[in-house]
């Protein structure tokens, strides 16, 4: 479904990706973990068309999508969130979600209804008409993630969804992600540093180290993998 072959990317002297290959064949919740600077976000950027790789190809459902513009990937069913949390600050919560729907050609009358339903799922309905800028960071994070789900993406890439989210909202988030997956299974790829959160959620972990995939497997197996332990501690 998603395949990355030999991706390489340098930023000046820093090697972000070095001959990175990875394939995801089945729908599921996948955790992408690794020490800081392992290349996780760069891999996201390469998959979602935010950055052109120096070498290598990206395929989605067999189709070569290397370097195509983000808006065209969105049309193919790819959605993502950002490490720094991006929402439209001056749009209200409803407008933020409405915009995602508008971009997927949902009619005006349906937008409000669908957006309200999603806001209710994450307890944000009382903020429906508040500008996103007035929300707390954790709420903005929820809004951002809800905004990626509302268009029913087949490929969802979340970059550190749990960072900066307080434990109570984190529970809401975990429940929401599970419910979304059960409702409509797709490829969910999640970069995360919060191990407890990702171990609980993911069925498989993919570990990156020094710009390439080091190991992958079930959470328990990864926890016990000597290579992974060495990468994290070394």
């Amino acid at each position, binding site marked *: 479904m998603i395949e990355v072959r030999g991706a390489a990317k340098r930023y000046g002297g820093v090697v972000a990706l070095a001959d990175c290959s990875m394939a995801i064949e089945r729908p599921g919740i996948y955790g992408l973990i690794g020490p800081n600077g392992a290349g996780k976000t760069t891999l996201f950027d390469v998959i979602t068309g935010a950055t052109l790789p120096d070498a290598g190809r990206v395929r989605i459902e067999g189709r070569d999508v290397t370097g195509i513009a*983000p*808006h065209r990937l969105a049309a193919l069913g790819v959605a993502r969130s950002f490490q720094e949390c991006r929402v439209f600050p001056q*749009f209200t919560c409803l407008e933020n979600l409405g915009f995602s729907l508008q971009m997927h050609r949902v009619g005006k009358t349906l937008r409000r209804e669908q957006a309200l339903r999603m806001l209710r799922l994450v307890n944000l309905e009382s903020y429906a008409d508040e500008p996103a800028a007035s929300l707390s960071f954790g709420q903005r994070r929820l809004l951002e993630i809800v905004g990626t789900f509302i268009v029913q993406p087949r490929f969802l890439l979340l970059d550190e969804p749990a960072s900066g989210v307080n434990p109570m909202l984190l529970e809401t988030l975990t429940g929401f992600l599970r419910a979304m997956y059960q409702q409509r299974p797709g490829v969910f790829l999640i970069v995360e540093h919060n191990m407890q959160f990702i171990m609980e959620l993911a069925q498989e972990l993919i570990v990156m180290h020094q710009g390439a995939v080091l190991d992958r497997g079930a959470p328990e197996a990864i926890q016990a993998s000597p290579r992974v332990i060495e990468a994290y501690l070394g």
Partner: protein
Amino acid sequence: MKLAAVAAVIAFLYALPAVASGQPYVLHIIALSCLYAIPAIGLNVMLGYTGLVSLGHMAFAGIGAYTAAVLMVDAKLSFWLALPIATITAGAAGFAVGSICLRFRTHYFMIVTLAFGLLLHQVMNNWDEVTRGAAGFPGIPRPAPLAIGDWSHSFGPLAGFYRLALTGLLAAFALQWAIVRSDFGKVLVAIRQDEKLAGFKGANTMLYKTTVFALGSAIAGFGGVLFVSFLRAASPDAFSLAESINMVLIVIIGGAGYLAGPLIGALVYIAVPEYLRAANELRLVLFGVLLVLITLFAPQGLAGLLQSGWKRVRR
């Protein structure tokens, strides 16, 4: 209620020449304000709603103006034919120049639009065979009278032209209103807030920005045609860098991203210096101080100030 108020204001504006019949100077100033407000609306769609600060906006008004001048004087076309052709020409030029300038962002974009503005001004200033050069393009006619059945309207007299300028302004305003309300307008505002995010959500941001640049330029061109027909002559200096910067000032003073912003900005920008004439040499100094004060105390422009004031009153 709201509709009735808008209708009353519009009716009053059309009746203004009768009300102020003894005040041709006032009417002249208001007509001029209308003509400045039209390109300002074009720039507001770009700068206020999409976040594209163009420093070459008036060059596109110039393209419209000179296209119409050549069509009317040299090709003997009627004003009513020259107006749409010149508007489309300015829009097409905006599309071409925009697709180059929009490869750049933020201050780089501003510099490139500035360069194109200077370049186009040089063409108007020096292409003597077509634009008549720095001396200006004389003899541009006012529109021929319109007659429908028994009703006829002449644009020669000030009152007649004022009504045309007002109609042009209302048309541009209605277009701006329709854009802002539409899904298209929603994308523009999204691009202003976070262009990258709008792209990831599925918007072809380059296409939207180029379209809006073309649209803003077409509106500027439309205003430019009316402007030179009003003055009966075109001068390159009406479309210079200084005028483009003044346009940015008008939009920001009036309130960028507010529907009424360009109208308020143009009125203040044209009318206030006229009424400061009492202060003679100090007039521009006083005006400068006023602009600084507005920027300091009304960062959202006068329209923003009025809106927040209104909210406080209604609380």
